[in-house]
């Protein structure tokens, strides 16, 4: 199997994730989009590691996973906290910082 196909898949997944982040209002779904983008990147990393026979890409993928796990914890906590105070999980309702 051609390794390039993995890269194409990673790009497609990344695009889906980005579109989710930009288009959906629900914070949980937006979050899932972010996760999708991160994991698309991971896929690209390991693919390149395989292509070049260099483990640095795999190491970085692990780093991304760790960071993503931490980010999920913090992010979900914020979302829950906002949901509790504002009774809404829509990102468009959280716009108090505008001019």
């Amino acid at each position: 199997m051609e390794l390039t196909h993995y890269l194409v898949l990673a790009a497609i997944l990344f695009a889906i994730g980005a579109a989710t982040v930009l288009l959906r209002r629900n914070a949980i779904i937006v979050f899932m989009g972010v996760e999708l983008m991160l994991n698309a990147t991971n896929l690209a990393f390991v693919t390149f590691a395989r292509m070049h026979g260099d483990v640095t890409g795999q190491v970085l993928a692990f780093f991304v996973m760790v960071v993503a796990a931490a980010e999920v914890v913090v992010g979900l906590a914020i979302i829950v906290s906002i949901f509790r105070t504002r009774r809404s999980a829509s990102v468009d309702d959280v716009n108090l910082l505008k001019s």
Partner: protein
Amino acid sequence: MTMLLPALPAASGLPAATDVVAVSEIVPDVFRAAPLLVLLPLLGAAVLLLAGRRSDRWGAWFGVLMSGAAFVVGVVLFLAMLGLPADERVVDHHLFDWIVAGGLDLAVGLRIDPLSLTFVLLVTFVGTLIHVYAVAYMAHDRDRRRFFAYLNLFVAAMLVLVLADSYLLLFVGWEGVGLASYLLIGFWNHHRPYAVAAKKAFVMNRVGDIGLIVALMLMFATFGAVDFTTVFAEAPAASTALLTATSLALLLAACGKSAQFPLQAWLGDAMAGPTPVSALIHAATMVTAGVYLVVRSAPIFEGAPTAQLVVVIVGAVTLLFGAIVGCAKDDIKKALAASTMSQIGYMILAAGLGPIGYAFAIFHLVTHGFFKAGMFLGAGSVMHGMDDQVDMRRFGGLARYMKVTWITFMAGWLAILGIPPFSGFWSKDKIIEAAFVPVDGEPWRAWVFGGVALLGAGITAFYMSRLFFMTFSGRRRWNDGGGSLDGLGSQDGPVRHPHESPRLMTWPMIVLAVGSVALGGLLAAGSRFVTWLEPVTGHAEHAEPVLPVWALMTLTLVLVLAGAALAWREYAMASVPVRAPRGSALTRAARRDLYQDDVNEAVFMRPGQYLTRSLVYADKEMVDGGWMGLAGLVGRVGEWLRGWQNGYVRSYGATMLGGLVVVAAVVLALTTGSAS
């Protein structure tokens, strides 16, 4: 000055040889005292201004003392000067280095020579007398001390002006007298017209000062120096065009300070100041500074015959101008001011004639200083007795009530008329004579300027007699409070009780009157004064006027007597209406100073105001508008950018993504571009 006269024979160019040896050894030490001349009055002004109300009680006499002390120093210097042989009578006293900058190396020094000493004696002597007079005249003024501080400041500044050994130091004194004059004209500045008059004098003087500044620049550019010694030594070598330009600039300065045409308009209004000020500053001393400047700058003027002609023309025009205005004024002080203008016209005319005129210009300046100051003090005395009335149509028959004032005023009147043997005769006749001396190649000059000078003498006789008769002779035109009125319209107006002034006021008048009677003859005898000034003005060859001297003298006297007789018929024999009649067109014009104010307003003031208003408008609209527009643009851009911060996370995300894509695209383009 009168007390010095016994010593004068030594000035006639034949000092005894033994005296010279004895005196010349101590002379350097004596002249070292010269700075005291300036410092004493300056100290007086400083003390009186700084001590404030504490010095109210003794301030006036302290001012008198300082001025008198300066006079004593002046006398000592004068006696020392007489001890020197004529060719050593120019003493430059170096004080300290002032400006050492590149090409300009200027020291502050005093030049003590016959010309400056003449001024020193005139200023300090007449000044001290007027100080004494003012002690009584200003007795009831709350601010008498401040008045004396200003008077002392004036004396100090005037002495700097005449003693300076460079044009720059002269300029310092020049500005100083301008300041003192401004402060004193506006001494009663709570009265608005007086404050306006002071401002007018100041502004018009500034116009003249520009001339002096331009002259300074030209001198520096031409000679690289502004001190008298260098400038006068190098002036003959300079080009005529440059000398003409410098001379005209100096003439402008002289016109401003001496109230000569076309900058004469301020002098009449300057009479708003207290009368001693009018006597000292606006008659006897400051206004003659222009004459001093022209005579002092003789080496420059002599290289520029065209400028000299302009000087003569200015003098002649002002002479007639002042005389005509003087004929119509009813305000005694303004009539005297017009007369001052006219008499200074004579001096400027003489100063423009060249070496034959310099000495007589200064001679007339000195005699005029005495008789005009005397008459101003007389006018002050009349005002004192008449509760500050200045309208001569409200005077009349005052001779009976103020004998001393009447007699001293008469001395001044006869002197200005030029009746022999009074002072004015000796000086004015000489100027008329000099004006009639033919100039090579231009025969018209002698006739035109001589004729103007002659005519001026006649008109002078008329208006001064008019003033004298309206005030002291004829019927009483003031309300004497009793029923026994013998004048027309004398029952209206406030009741007056004319009385002679106190001795402190009459004594200075008497001294000045003695000077008006005798000074001219004493100084003219054996041409003492001319010889005395020769170290500065140079020796003038005697030149014959186009008419014989006796004919000129007779003609002058006939014109003067005719003028006086006409005035006698009109203002002493006939009754003078209390309200001024409408008069002829010329009279009405003269009452308004020949429309000089209207001309100035139309030609300079209104266009000037229009110009400043346009400039303000342009500044607001174009300069300010430009910057304000730029600021507005920045603000509007900011407003537009602010719209991007809408608070929606997703739009921020889209922006970030867009930015990232752009950055990635640029990086890709660059790397592939550089790789290929």
